[in-house]
């Protein structure tokens, strides 16, 4: 069953003045366990599509279903809670809470979910180990490199046990080594834990590693192709 399904999704900015068609009748499905990249030039609508799928923005028309639930018509407060329980986010600028340590950043989302304290500590430590930051769990973001911060962001996104993770240009600010390291971690989680990842990117390093690549041009899907990477063949 598709985790994400969009039906004729359209988004028009400034409809009354200078209309900008950011999305035009986009219908896609993303299944559990996918490692999908949404590519396209600037202004092609890839970030808008991710915002719609993530419930951060409302479409002008069309529907977004997450696990069969229509989210675009949900009330704001309900959508916030839905995001908390179902969607993980990784941002281009990492967006960690600067006054929290790596461990607190990862724990925070679980605290919002009102989980048991012991479980929170344990899971935060496990996740930081998985992203290779077991030794840096007490460091604050300012004490971490960009790549390390983005790995904390991945651990935070995973902490809430979401249905899927949306990553908006996750490698845009990283050097090659950090980007590859991050992609290795995400790929490993996808393989081993069947975590679903959807990226928006124009980074060829990410596109090369994705198993499905959706290409967007002028707000519409131009191409939707499956790549036969080594990892996929192994799978």
């Amino acid at each position: 069953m598709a985790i994400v399904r969009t039906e004729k999704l359209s988004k028009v900015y400034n409809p009354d003045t200078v209309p900008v068609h950011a999305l035009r009748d986009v219908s896609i499905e993303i299944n559990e366990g996918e490692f999908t990249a949404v590519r396209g030039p600037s202004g092609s609508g890839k970030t808008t599509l991710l915002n719609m799928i993530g419930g951060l923005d409302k479409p002008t028309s069309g529907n977004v279903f997450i696990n069969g639930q229509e989210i675009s018509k949900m009330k704001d407060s309900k959508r916030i809670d839905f995001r908390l329980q179902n969607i993980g986010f990784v941002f281009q600028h990492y967006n960690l809470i600067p006054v929290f340590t790596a461990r607190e950043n990862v724990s925070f989302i679980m605290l919002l979910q009102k989980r048991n304290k012991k479980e929170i500590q344990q899971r935060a430590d496990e996740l930081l180990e998985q992203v290779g930051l077991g030794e840096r769990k007490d460091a604050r973001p300012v004490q971490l490199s960009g790549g390390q911060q983005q790995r904390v962001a991945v651990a935070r996104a995973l902490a809430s046990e979401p249905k899927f993770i949306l990553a908006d240009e996750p490698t845009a600010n990283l050097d090659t080594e950090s980007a590859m390291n991050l992609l290795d971690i995400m790929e490993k989680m996808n393989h081993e834990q069947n975590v679903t990842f959807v990226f928006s990117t124009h980074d060829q390093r990410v596109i090369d590693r994705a198993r499905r690549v959706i290409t967007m041009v002028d707000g519409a899907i131009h191409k939707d192709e499956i790549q036969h990477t080594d990892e996929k063949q192994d799978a």
Partner: protein
Amino acid sequence: MKTLFTISWRNIWRHPARSSVLLAAIIVGLWAGVVTVGIINGLMQQRIDYMIESEITHAQVHNPDFLAEGYSWLYIPDHDEITAWLENDDRVTSFTSRTITDGMLQSPIKTSGVRIRGINIDSEIRTTNFHENIVEGEYLDSDIRNAVIIGQKLANDHNVEVGNRIVLTFEDTGNELTSGSFNIAGIFKSASVDYDERNVFIRSDEFIALLGDEEVYHEIGIMLADEELAGPVVEELNEAFPGIHAQTWRQLSPELSMLVELGGYMVILITMIIMIALAFGILNTMLMALFERMREIGMLLSIGMSRLRVFSMIMLESIILTITGAAVGIILATLSINYFSDTGINLEMFAEGAAQVGWDHIIYPILSSTEYIIILAVVVIITLLASVYPAIKGIRINPLEAAKDG
């Protein structure tokens, strides 16, 4: 809640210099406000205590028309019965009868209108502490015949000194003009220059001898065990003696009574002025902090932090900052007030000006527990109001801010 508190507390210290400046402004502002209120209270209390203890007393009895007209024949009827009643009442600690009339003081150089007060030395000393105001010469308990004590201002105006003679002229109880020659035994200086200029004191027995054949009194000053007893005692006196008019110090001196009420308003007013000024500081700091964290708050909303929690987080930041500042400010102010309530604040440089308006230059600040509560309430209410706007701004941030470039 603990997490919200932690994040709010750490957010405050994200810019230590900025928060410290605001904290210092709150501490100093509140300290200054509380101490100012304490000083104002001290000034008012000083004025009230002085007026009660040196002159007005807690309650007074007069002929119903005397205070308005001031004639010597408007004396208190049933004086002896009233004093007997007072002697038998446990609430009364002391009382003194005074013979009073308005008249003229003549010196070799000029003539002035004065109020002539004939006092019984023993009972006056038991009832008031006016005798402590003597700055030159002696009180009326001297051996000098026809002794008079006059205020320093009056003495200066008439260029007279202890040992000189003056003439007092007044109407006696038979409506006849009478004069008497008096020797200046002493010069007093009260807290009010105005009072010093308009009052002279002589012995009541000598005064009565000049006023007429019978012993007449125009005023009975009464000190009570507690100021609060003034109302009931006055009421009972008026009921028991229909021909007199007994009044409390509040009725006798409405301006003094107004001072007490004013004190209450001043606490709120001064605290509000200081806090409103500080509120703009809080508002400015919180808005700056908010605008710097648009993306971060967008991220919090994106990952699932409810708008109510974001609202609470921003409110908490202002509240923690203000409560910390207010607590330190109030502790410092309490320590200052406690210290100065023993030693007094010596405003020597303003002594002359203060005396012109009837105040002593040593001020003992006072602040009641009710006033502390009022100040804290004003601080909390204004802080909450100042925090609401940034908090509302905060919850209106679009989660998409998290994904913005730059």
